[in-house]
């Protein structure tokens, strides 16, 4: 009895002081306050839009766009809808981001390893590169490429002739376009078969080495397959390809493929800028692997190259991948700076649509959703890669 009384008494007397009750109450209050706040913002916006007679909703996306976009990866004319114009912008953003990520990664790894080189000159050059690009705002790097490099190239009339029928002028880089004729599917088929064969050879070679210890020149074999098979198919099909060279037209070079200076400068700037950060991440990753690991593989009799590949790099990757992901995300988001140089990315095209239709809130919501979507997709891929590379404790 007495025990029960002691047990019950504090609970009844101190409902306010019960940490559980207090916790729940405060969380409820917070949720209600948040909901009220959001409701108020939304309601206020709707009221204001109504009072100013501004149309709302996403129906405008079906309207005729009426403006042209010069750089596009999908078919688009001014008769297409605003929605399609946005899609052109999304593809352009994706294109520059993907190209930038690949180049930045390669360049970043080279510079990062360069910073650890034993060669004084390479080491100092790599350091200078990192310090220079890391400390300049990305917009400035873009403008440097656009106005400082590409705008100073000669005009169309005095285009710089490059080998293989390519030209460089202040309208961009022009190179010949391969026109695939009938029968060219054989070449692509040859390429696909070669890749499949190489993969099989690599598997067999590994199995054989495991079983007998004998090695097989996998790299050279694969190279021969991947170059040789399509080449053979190409000859068999009777050279089914013609080349369209850029020609001088009234105003511009016509024909061939034209990479415009807007894309070039954005791509180069994003690659160079992000590579500086990636270089530091790579350096940190390699330095983060204890020296004992190097000594251990040497003690086991592995050669330096093999040891790096099998022991050091896999461990360094665990340190490198998570920050690398955020650099990829940064690069994608920085691509919206394209607006300064007239590259029609999502932000530039969306801005034009915003202006023509006045649907500010809707367009900004689309911006957020698309950038969020691209970022989440990048994160998911990198998380999967990270999980694959992560330490597997056995």
């Amino acid at each position: 009895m007495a025990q029960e009384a002691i047990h019950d008494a504090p609970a009844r007397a101190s409902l306010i002081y019960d940490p559980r009750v207090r916790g729940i109450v405060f969380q409820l209050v917070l949720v209600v306050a948040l909901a009220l706040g959001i409701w108020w913002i939304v309601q206020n916006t709707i009221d204001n839009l109504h009072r100013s007679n501004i149309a709302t909703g996403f129906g405008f996306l079906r309207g005729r766009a009426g403006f042209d976009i010069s750089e596009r990866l999908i078919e688009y004319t001014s008769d297409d809808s605003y929605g399609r114009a946005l899609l052109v912008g999304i593809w352009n953003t994706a294109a520059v981001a993907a190209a930038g990520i690949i180049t930045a990664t390669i360049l970043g790894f080279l510079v990062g390893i360069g910073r650890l080189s034993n060669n004084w000159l390479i080491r100092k050059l790599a350091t200078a590169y990192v310090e220079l690009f890391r400390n300049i705002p990305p917009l400035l790097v873009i403008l440097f490429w656009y106005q400082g490099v590409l705008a100073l190239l000669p005009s169309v009339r005095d285009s710089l002739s490059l080998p293989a029928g390519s030209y460089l002028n202040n309208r961009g880089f022009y190179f010949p376009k391969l026109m695939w004729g009938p029968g060219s599917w054989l070449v692509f088929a040859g390429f696909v078969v070669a890749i499949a064969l190489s993969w099989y050879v690599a598997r067999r070679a590994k199995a054989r080495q495991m079983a007998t210890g004998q090695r097989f020149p996998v790299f050279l074999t694969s190279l021969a397959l991947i170059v040789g098979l399509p080449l053979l198919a190409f000859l068999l099909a009777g050279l089914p390809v013609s080349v369209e060279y850029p020609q001088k037209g009234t105003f511009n070079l016509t024909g061939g493929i034209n990479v415009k200076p807007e894309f070039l400068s954005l791509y180069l700037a994003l690659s160079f800028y992000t590579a500086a950060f990636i270089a530091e991440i790579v350096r940190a990753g390699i330095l983060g692997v204890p020296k004992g690991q190097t000594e251990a593989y040497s003690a086991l009799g592995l050669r330096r190259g093999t040891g790096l590949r099998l022991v050091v790099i896999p461990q360094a990757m665990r340190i490198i991948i998570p920050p690398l992901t955020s650099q990829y995300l940064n690069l994608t988001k920085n691509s919206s700076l394209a607006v300064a140089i007239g590259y029609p990315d999502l932000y530039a095209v969306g801005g034009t649509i915003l202006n023509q239709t006045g649907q500010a809130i809707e367009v900004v919501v689309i911006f957020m959703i698309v950038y969020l979507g691209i970022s989440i997709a990048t994160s998911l891929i990198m998380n999967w890669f990270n999980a694959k590379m992560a330490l597997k404790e056995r």
Partner: protein
Amino acid sequence: MKNIAIGILGAAAFGFMATAASADTLDDVKAKGFIQCGVNTGLAGFSAPNDKGEWTGLDVDFCRAVAAAVFGDGTKVKFTGLSAKDRFTALQSGEVDILSRNTTWTINRDTALGLNFAGVTYYDGQGFMINAKKLPGVNSALQLSGAAVCVQAGTTTELNLADYFRANKMEYNPVVFEKFEEANAAYDSGRCDAYTTDQSGLYAVRLQMSSPDDHVVLPEIISKEPLGPSVRQGDDKWFHIVRWTYFALLNAEEAGVTQANVDEMKNSNNPDIRRLLGSEAETKIGTDLGVSNDWVVNIVKATGNYGEIFERNVGSGSPLKIARGINALWTKGGLQYGMPIR
């Protein structure tokens, strides 16, 4: 908990006040003591800072005229430089009270965008400019097939351009910039073969090129571009002040009231002029509008009449030397027609 509740109530009350206040721009403007005016970031003749850092131009002077009507002082106005893309959002969100930024009056902007255009301060049309030194054979816009054309994003210009090339079955390559300055710089550096904007703008841009004499404006005018000031919808009082400031400028010119003679004109025998300048006994014209009765006197003292503003900024008194043309008064064969102030 109590604090949170008060906070919520406070926020709600504040929100209510904010919504209520923005419905009456005139009271807002009077309370803060100046008009916030959205202008172009740098279009010679319309709105550009001069070498002393003061804003000058036709669009700028219009805002000064509104300030003079409201405050009796043409200097009580602050300017916000806006890109073509930002301009409507800035007006809709209340960041500026008037948008006076060489903006074309279209039905879409008047309805779906929630704007009200007060009048047409400059009748314009879209044209093309090329570098005649680099393209000596070109003397018509119809020869521009295949050209790269620099244009500013989010303008009617961009749409007219697409329509014009499409209608004439010509190819072109638009190079679209968000900012006027960026488009100018790209054209000057040779990134584009042609530059397109309103003709008045072309004359202004031409003067900013590194060698203006090399550039020629092609004869074709491919669109109607009535440029004028606009305000938010749903505030008739403010809309009327802006609209009638415009008409007052026109009527002052028609009546021959200038910056120099406005004080004598107050004592004129002509009843029209006396009514215009608020010197009639027991007049209520100004107070009915929500301003003082000598509002037109204040306007003309601050900026001069429409003709004076025009000549000073874009006409014979300026480097642009644009003729009045269709921007002359209706009495002189133009389109500018001020509704009667009575």
